[in-house]
């Protein structure tokens, strides 16, 4: 056991394999650092349990509870027997002062979330649904590929419901827009993925919409 583990052992909690650590919609006031075992982050979308992430020892989850006691946005399930340090807003500062490496990890998570939320804001402030959907494509492209890609065609594992969620529109409305793009041969829609023929074309489209707003 390292000195760090010893120091924080009193915050350690065990979860049997398969048990729920916290559940979507439950008010949240704790966050966790995994010591051993893996944790699956899932969300029930349209009656399907979707795995958003699989976390390994050393990773943090439930960290949004530090900011506010909002309901959990996803469910955390122990994939193995999990041992994790459980923290709350009260003992948070002790942890961070005693271990700047964890604070740094948390800082990176916050940075990523700020970026994601800003990007989401940009999408939501577009006026029409076509531009919103197109901008979601761009956001996904930014995540998956280096900035200066050579090939204009990209493919992502996303469904109409996912796109609708990010664009902040109804799934039916979203499907109409994607079907429209598909008729124009700009995208191909499959059950589990979407192929974009020319991402730069969408880039120009979104930029022009954003300009016309100003």
């Amino acid at each position: 056991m390292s000195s760090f583990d010893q120091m924080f052992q009193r915050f350690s909690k065990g979860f049997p394999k398969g048990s729920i650590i916290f559940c979507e919609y439950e008010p949240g006031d704790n966050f966790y650092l995994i010591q051993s075992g893996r944790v699956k982050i899932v969300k029930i979308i349209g009656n399907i349990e979707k795995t958003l992430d699989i976390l390994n020892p050393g990773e943090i989850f439930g960290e949004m509870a530090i900011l506010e006691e909002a309901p959990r946005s996803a469910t955390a399930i122990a994939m193995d027997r999990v041992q994790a340090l459980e923290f709350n807003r009260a003992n948070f500062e002790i942890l961070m002062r005693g271990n700047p490496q964890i604070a740094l990890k948390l800082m990176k998570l916050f940075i990523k979330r700020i970026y994601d939320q800003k990007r989401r804001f940009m999408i939501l402030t577009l006026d029409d649904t076509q531009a919103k959907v197109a901008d979601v494509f761009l956001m996904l492209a930014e995540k998956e590929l280096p900035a200066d890609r050579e090939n204009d065609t990209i493919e992502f594992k996303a469904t109409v419901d996912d796109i609708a969620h990010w664009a902040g529109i109804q799934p039916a409305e979203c499907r109409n827009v994607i079907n429209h793009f598909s008729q124009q041969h700009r995208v191909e829609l499959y059950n589990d993925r979407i192929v974009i023929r020319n991402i730069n074309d969408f880039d120009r489209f979104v930029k022009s919409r954003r300009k016309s707003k100003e």
Partner: protein
Amino acid sequence: MSPKSVFYKANSIIYFQGDIGDKVFILNAGKVSLNYEDIETGQEIHDLVKTGEFFGVKSALGRFRREETAVVLADSTVVAFSVPEFEQLVGKHGRVVLKMLKVFSNQLRRIQKQVQNLIHAEEHINPEKGLFSIGEYYLSNKAYDQAIYAFKRYLVYYPSGSRASDAIKNIETAESYLNRYGQGKGPDAAPQAAQPAPAGKPQETKQLSDVAQTYYKAVSLISQEKYDDAYNEFKAIVNSSNDEEYISKSQYEMGRCLFYVKKYDNCIRLFTTWIQKYPKHPDVKDALYFIASSHNAMNNGDKAISIFKKVLALTPETESLYQKARKALRKLEGEKV
């Protein structure tokens, strides 16, 4: 490689918005402004960097494009760090990271609010309904453990919620399926839906749910650490109900309350009688754990040790109770040596 000190002349640019960069900067001397547009108003903002302050942190650490243009207003010296150099530096200074963490958490809170304001009201699912629907999902997929967790949480947070009695019935269904068929197996369970109850025996169902509602209200009092209030509610159930299941559960919870308010003698007495009365109850090992812990708190080390050993013998190693008992036992035995 070590961090480099760089001199910039007035009116030069350290980086442009949209650049890709992997350096974090700290302003040593001079005047630098970060220029960007506010995402809400589009208004051009100029933020002056204070001497000794970091900038370019988010884009470098998050590996995305610069979000602002760093303009040098007067001759300046800055130190440029690579990301590993920066991490090494702040990794040693908890206070610095904590300060930055606070800045970023404020930014995050702000942008989240801005996003929330834009999302239409229909996207907001009421958390009470949401939590119930998670339980329904797991129950209909035969994930009984998860269903029980979700419905129990529902009852803790919404003991008099509109679906509380359905949640109780669903827990009972999930528990009986779990015992009879095991996790992931068994017939399709139709979760208690919001339909009106069938006309069969309305009187009986209502009485049952009254007891259960009081019970879960009291359980939620425990989680709010109102042990005396909880104790009285449980006691009322024991005195007035004729539902053996809730009487046994309530007596058990009374024992827990006594432990939490440090009435160890009473706690031991109550659990001892309870175990004699319900020797096959699944919570017997937990009751023993409370008896042992009470002895421990009263410095009856030997008694505590022998009862903790009993707990270990009764509990599968995978349960957290086992870990707790083993830890307590080790500590006690360590003290004796």
